[in-house]
Structures are given as structure tokens and as C-alpha cells.
């Protein structure tokens, strides 16, 4: 497929599947709440299994580990009617399918991509446990944004390690982490050494944590009525904001 974003992804034609996936499958197999089902039905138009990056087509070997086996990577395309709950939908879909996934949420002239770090839930053979997952902002086909363009170029099939399926997928995850960092710094850069990559992840996590702390304090402040308590919270928030800026410099 040469349409956006597949031109960037550059996945070999041998991997093309292009089969319709019915929402019913999710209702039956995934644990959905009432709200989840509502959004799934209302927000999603259709779901397609676009590609399967697997050994027989790519010659990239599978990898079996104690808790998880990386047999293949599925690229799933989700056509959206409504973009309000995409993050939650990504969560549901990643959990429901026990393979590493690249989800492409499709809007009119944009997509959102999503990957996830997950483990097989040992207790429940069908479900996967999500450690962390990422969803990009809307990426526009004309990719005027420098960061988006750099990110999409990094997602190219040819740029990922070919040692095994797990390492390949990890390559995509690293591209996502650099994308998230770039959202803060404005510059897309992929650290080349393992050490720098680790530092980038740590700084990013610290940044997110500080952001969350600041949000929590803001909520607290709105609830408080006493002036003196509000002032104290303001001072604390400002201190954290300063730390946030310093962390951003590290990214």
C-alpha cells in the first residue's frame, strides 16, 4: 500500500494481509466495560488487519521468552468516526490481541500511530498485561511538521534491527520515545548509544512524573479554600515547574 502512512513504514508487500476484522471479535474476547463497548461501537468505523511482520515473509526470526513469545507483529488499521477516545481504544486493542501491535488510527487526512510494551498475562492465557503504551498526536499526510517527518522516517522498516522480531519491535518503540521527547524539546533526535537511550527514557519519565505532580497540586489548589494553603501550593507548583524546565533541558 502506498497510501499514508504506509509509504513511510515501507513494509514489504509479502507481509500484506489486508483482511477485515470484525468488532464482534473484540466484544467476545476482550474484557470491555459498558463505556468501552459504547466507544468502540460509536467511534470506530472499520478495523483492518493490514500487515503481518512475520518470519516466513521477512526472514526476521521469531523469539520465544519465558513470559512472552514474539512470533509476529501485526499492523492494525482502525478507521475512526470520532477521535475523542483514541487513547482508551488503543489500550483496549493492545490488551485484546496477544501480539505486538502497531495500530494506525485513521482520520480524514491524518493518522495516529500506537505501539505498546506488553507481557503475556501468565494467569490468563488470552489477555496481555500492558506495561506502557504510546499514542502519537495526529500525524498529517503532508507532514509539514519537522518532528513528525523525522519520526515517520525513523519508523521505516529498513531502519529497524533485524536480529529478531522482538528487537525489531523495540526499534519502533524507541522511535516513539524519541517522538515523545521531541514533543517537549521541539527537536527529533534518536540517541545512538544504549546509555544515552536509557538517559532519554529516564528524563522523559521524570518529566512526565513532574507534569503529573503539578497537575495533582493544581487540582488540590482548586479544592482548597483557605488563602494561605493556596499560596503554599502555588509556591510548590512554581518549584516543580522550575524542575520541569530543567528536566526538559536534559532531553
Amino acid at each position, binding site marked *: 500500500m502506498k497510501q499514508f502512512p504506509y509509504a513511510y513504514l515501507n513494509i514489504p508487500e509479502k507481509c500484506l494481509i489486508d483482511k477485515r476484522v470484525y468488532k464482534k471479535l473484540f466484544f467476545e474476547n476482550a474484557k470491555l466495560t459498558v463505556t468501552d463497548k459504547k466507544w468502540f461501537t460509536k467511534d470506530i468505523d472499520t478495523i483492518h488487519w493490514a500487515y503481518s511482520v512475520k518470519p516466513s515473509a521477512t526472514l526476521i526470526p521469531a523469539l520465544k521468552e519465558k513470559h512472552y513469545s514474539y512470533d509476529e507483529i501485526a499492523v492494525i488499521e482502525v478507521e475512526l468516526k470520532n477521535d475523542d477516545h483514541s487513547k482508551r481504544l488503543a489500550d483496549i486493542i493492545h490488551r485484546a490481541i496477544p501480539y505486538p501491535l502497531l495500530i494506525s488510527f485513521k482520520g480524514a487526512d491524518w493518522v495516529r500511530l500506537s505501539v505498546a510494551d506488553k507481557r503475556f498475562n501468565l494467569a490468563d492465557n488470552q489477555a496481555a498485561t500492558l506495561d506502557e503504551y504510546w499514542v502519537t498526536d495526529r500525524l498529517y499526510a503532508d507532514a509539514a511538521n519537522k518532528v513528525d517527518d523525522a519520526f515517520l522516517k525513523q519508523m521505516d522498516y529498513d531502519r529497524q534491527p533485524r536480529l529478531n522480531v522482538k528487537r525489531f519491535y523495540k526499534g519502533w518503540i524507541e522511535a516513539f520515545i524519541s517522538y515523545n521527547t521531541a514533543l517537549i524539546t521541539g527537536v527529533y533526535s534518536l540517541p545512538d548509544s544504549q546509555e544515552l537511550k536509557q538517559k532519554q527514557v529516564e528524563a522523559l519519565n521524570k518529566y512526565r512524573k513532574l507534569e503529573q505532580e503539578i497537575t495533582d497540586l*493544581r487540582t488540590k*489548589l482548586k479544592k482548597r479554600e*483557605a*488563602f*494561605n494553603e*493556596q*499560596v*503554599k*501550593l*502555588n*509556591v510548590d*507548583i*512554581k*518549584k516543580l515547574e522550575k524542575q520541569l524546565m530543567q528536566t526538559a533541558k536534559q532531553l
Partner: protein
Amino acid sequence: MSDTIPPLTEKDGESKDLVAENVEKLKQLFPEIVTDGKVDFETLQEVLGEFKEESQERYSFTWNGKSKARKLAMTPSRGTLRPAPDESVNWDSTEHLFIEGDNLEVLKLLQRSYHGKVKMIYIDPPYNTGGDFIYRDDYKDNLKNYLRSTGQVDEEGKKLSSNPEYNGRYHTDWLNMMYPRLLLSRELLKDDGVIFISIDDNEVQNLKKLCDEVIGEDNFLNLISVKAKPSSGASGGGEDKRLKKNVEFLLCYTKDRNSFSKFNDVYEERNLFSFIEEYREEGKSWKYTRVLYSLGDKSYFTTVKDGSGNDIKIFKHEDVEFKTIKELADSDNITEEEAYIKYFDRVFRDTNAQSSIRQRVIEATDDKDTFYSIEYMPISGRNKGEITTLYYKGRNKDLIAWLSDVADKNNGELIKREKLGTLWDNFNWNNISKEGSIKYPNGKKPISFIRRMIELTSSESKDDIILDFFAGSGSTAHATIDLNEEDGGLRRSLSIQLPEIISKKDKKKYYSDEELKHIETVADVFKERLIRSFKKYERQGKNLGFKVFKLDSTNIKPWEPNYDNLQASIEAVIENSKPDRAESDVLYEILLKYGLDLALPIEVKEIGGSKVFVAGSGALFICLAPNIDLNVVEGIAKLKEELEPELTRVVFRDSGFKDDMVKTNAVQILKQHGIEDVRSI
């Protein structure tokens, strides 16, 4: 929001009204008893019916003057705290506070800002031994009394009113002094906060009763006995007839037993060898003298069950070797101490303590001189839930107890650790006069003593506020800083001390050196001591210091009409701050009124030609300058937008505007920039 600036009222010149708060609290609990802002005691009686104490005789603790003393605590203060940056150290960055003044008035002024914020209080009040200075509160106007009396003292150092034992109301006066101060300081404690009070046998009983009343009997934690330096100066007064006192007490309460979880684990540590020496000197037999040199060959023997049905695996050991420390020292050609260190992990003693496990081992094995080990999982005690190995030896299957269970090896030194109990007897009282490099005739407490209290109550975040309102020479502040240095904590000390004038006699004796000549009051000793102690500390940087504040009358002139010259009185009110007060004095009074921390970050900016204080990272703008024009107002609005605070309040002087038109427009301009909270003083 209104378009005018709400003016200051007389009530604003007062500190927190505790009585009104109590009524409010009652209203929340029993809405039916508060009608029209007044408490209906008959209805209250009905609500609490069966708890009413009916009889005339009752279990209560009372004394002459008690109600007056309580009332004194409830009367709001008409004072304020004036900043003294010139007498402070690192004014801009430190969060330690030192307040000079009568602690009663100061405690009132701190109510709004520090209510429920203090984690630990330590005080070393007068023990009421007969020669102490008992500061006499004046019920009519305590503040005036303070201002007047801190100037007066006689040659011999007999302060304004000492409390000699032959004073008929000897205990009463002491109680009237302590009662209101305890009432007020209790309000400042966090719910899980703890108060420690040093006292000796003169008043320990009354103090306990007082605390039971003020803090609540349920909240009593411990009465600790402290081995002190034997009391000196026992001439006359019948002291030679009695034994020399070498014990005093530390009374300890928490604010709310339900919120207080427990004391932190603190251990008394001493060098093991000096412990052993003392042990032997006391004629006791030190038993940890053998080493389990080799466990020999281990083989599985059998499995039995414990009381809960869980397995106890038993193993037999052949060719086990024991040696004494002495033997090993000789054969290795080292001293016994070195042998202890070398074989530390294997030093043991036997015990024949009875236990059900031991019983089962005895039953399962034999009564010959053999050696067995067991593996099991205890369901209680120190090793609960973990697989534990125990060893049994000899015909009686005595349990092996390891030295390493009661001692530690730390940096090559062997330390005996004991969990702290209620006898504190290993402080060194002999060198305290040297502590802080300055002498203090009224008795210092060793900082290790106070440090222990802080360790017992320290929160995990190590950022507690520690209050001492009988600060003396500053041992509590010193101890706080000392502990911060060691564990990287950010604890804040809050010290209050009356600037008692030091007698000529003491001044000549202790403070006649060139560097000490400036010392006139006890407060001066505090400051000098801390400054000298700072030299030792490196980690704390700009946090090391103290901000000095002084108790004084309110900056805001109360309405005190002079009916003979009403015109002048009215004009005086228009200019409503006292003329000799600086803007920074008024600034801090405003901070106290708003219940803000005295160490709040404050920046001084010049905006439109006028001085503006920016407090709390942009949450509060205070401009006390005269002749403010719209440039200043615009400037403030602009600065607010740069700083982006979560909330903003702006305070002006009522008479500070250039003219009425500016005043009206000011409110509008600020409103346009999202600032609705505008006040005037």
C-alpha cells in the same frame, strides 16, 4: 466581586479569635445548640445528658487563677512580629526562624500561620525550683506588660518577679504561666505531632496533670527518666539533708493518639568492648565468648511438625568445632578484640530458654552431646515468614544465640545496640557548656539529647517543623541543624525566646570577652551560639541561618480616640500606620494576618517607581508605597502575567493612591488582567 476595596477593621489588628473558632466547631458538631452565634448551654446539656458530671466533688485539676489563665490564652493578641534582617543570617534563603518576645503573645500570633503544622515541640521550661524567673503575665494588657517589663531587672539578676518557694502561691504561679502556653502550643501541633517537656521532681506531678487536662490523658506517651548531672549548689535550704538529685524527667504527649502511629526505632549504641568491660566490672558474666568454628558435615535427619502443622526440617552435624575467643586470639596471634572482629559472625553463647520448637527438637533427637540444625518458617517474631535456621547443641539441646543478633559490625567497629526505653542514661553532661562554643548560665541541654527526640519523631520526608518556645541558648535549633547535616534533612527550627536581660554578674563572668561584649540578653546568646555553630556545617549551604523577628505592638493604629482632640485623632486614623514603622514591618504583619509562613519567599521589586513586595511566587502582591499612580498598577498586572501564578491577591494602602480616581481605576485595571482579589489596609 465588588468594585471597591474592602477596608481594614479593628478586628484585623488582632490575632486569631480562638473562642469564635470553638463556637464554630461546636456548631459543626451540634448545630442545634448554637443559636444566633451564641451557645445554648441548656440544649448542650440535653445533647450530652448522661455525660454530665453531677456531683460537687469531682476528679478535676484546678487552681486559683485557672480560668483567668485560660481566658488569657483565648484573648487575641494586639501585637505583631517585626522582621530584623540585620540581626539574621542568610535572611533570604533560610527557613529557620527565631522570634524574640514573650512566648505567650508570640504563640498567639503564630496561630494562623502554623496551626497544625508543627511535628515536634521540645521545651525546657523553668522547673520552678524556687530561684527561677517566672514571667508574670498581665491579664489586662499582656503586650504592654511585656514591652514594659523587659527593660527591668535588678543588679543581682533577680528578674522582675522570681518565684521563691516561700511564695504562698508557689505552684499556682507556675501553673498560670504554663497553662496558657500549653493550650496555645497544642494548637500548633500536627495531629500526629509530639510534645516533649523537660521537668524535675518539683513540678512533674503538676505538669502531668496539666498535660492530661490540656492535651488529654489518652494522649500521654511516656514519662522518661533522664540521668542528669548531679545538681550542683546544694548549700542551705535543706538540700544537704536530702540525697543529691541526679535524675530529671522528660514528659511526652502526642496531640492525637489515633493519628500517632509510633516512635521511630532509635537505638542506643555503644562500643561493644567498653560495654563488655562495664558488664564485667558490674560483676556480671559476659557469655559471648565462643566461636562456632566449623559446622562439620551436615546430613538430613528427619522432619517434624510445629504447633501449626508446618514442617521443621532437622539436620545432624558431625565433627562440629567450637573454639573460645581466647584460643583463637592465641593461635592467630592477635588480640581478643581483633578476634571478636575477625570471627564476629560466628561468636555465640548458649541459652537454655524454653520454647516449643526446642522441645520438639529434644523429642526428635537424643540426649547425647550432639549438634543439630533446623530449618523452619516462624509464624511470629523477628523472622516471621522467612525460612530460618537455628542450631542446637549439647545434651540439653541448648539454642545457639549469635552475638550478631545483639551487636553490629560497622566500619570495622563493633557496636552494641539496644532499643531505646524510658531510661536515658548515656548522655555526656560534662561537656555541654562547651557546646555551641558559648557558655550559658541557665543550663543547656546536650544537643544529642534533643537530637534523639527529633529522631524518634522525624517524618520520612525529614522536613518537619520543630518548635521550642523556651529556646534559651538555642540547643533545639542547634540539634535540628546538626541532624539535618547528617541525614540531609530539611527540618525547620522555630524558636521563641524572651530577651531576658543578663545580670551584670553573669555578663562579667561569661560575656566579657571582646567578641562577646555585644551580648545583653538571652536572645543575643541564642544568636551568637548558632552563628558559632554554623562554622562546622558544610552541606546545608544557604539554608543555614535564621530569620529574626521581634514582638512589638501592631503596626496598624487602633482606634484610640482622644476626645479632647478629636480632630487630631481622626487625622491619625487616616494615616493608619504608625509613623516609625517601615514598610517591611507592615508587610510581615499582613503575612501573619493571612496565615502565611514567615519564611515565604519574598521578592522586592520596583514597579513604576514604587516598591512592591511579591510574595509566594506571585500569589500575593503588596504595595505599601504612597502616591501610587496607574503605572504601578499596570506594572503589577504585567508582572502577574509574566509569573503566571495559580491565584493572585493584591494589597494596597488605603491612603496609598494618588487620588480617588486612581483608586477606582486600579480595581478595574486589575480586573481586566484577571485579578479580582484586591484589598486595602
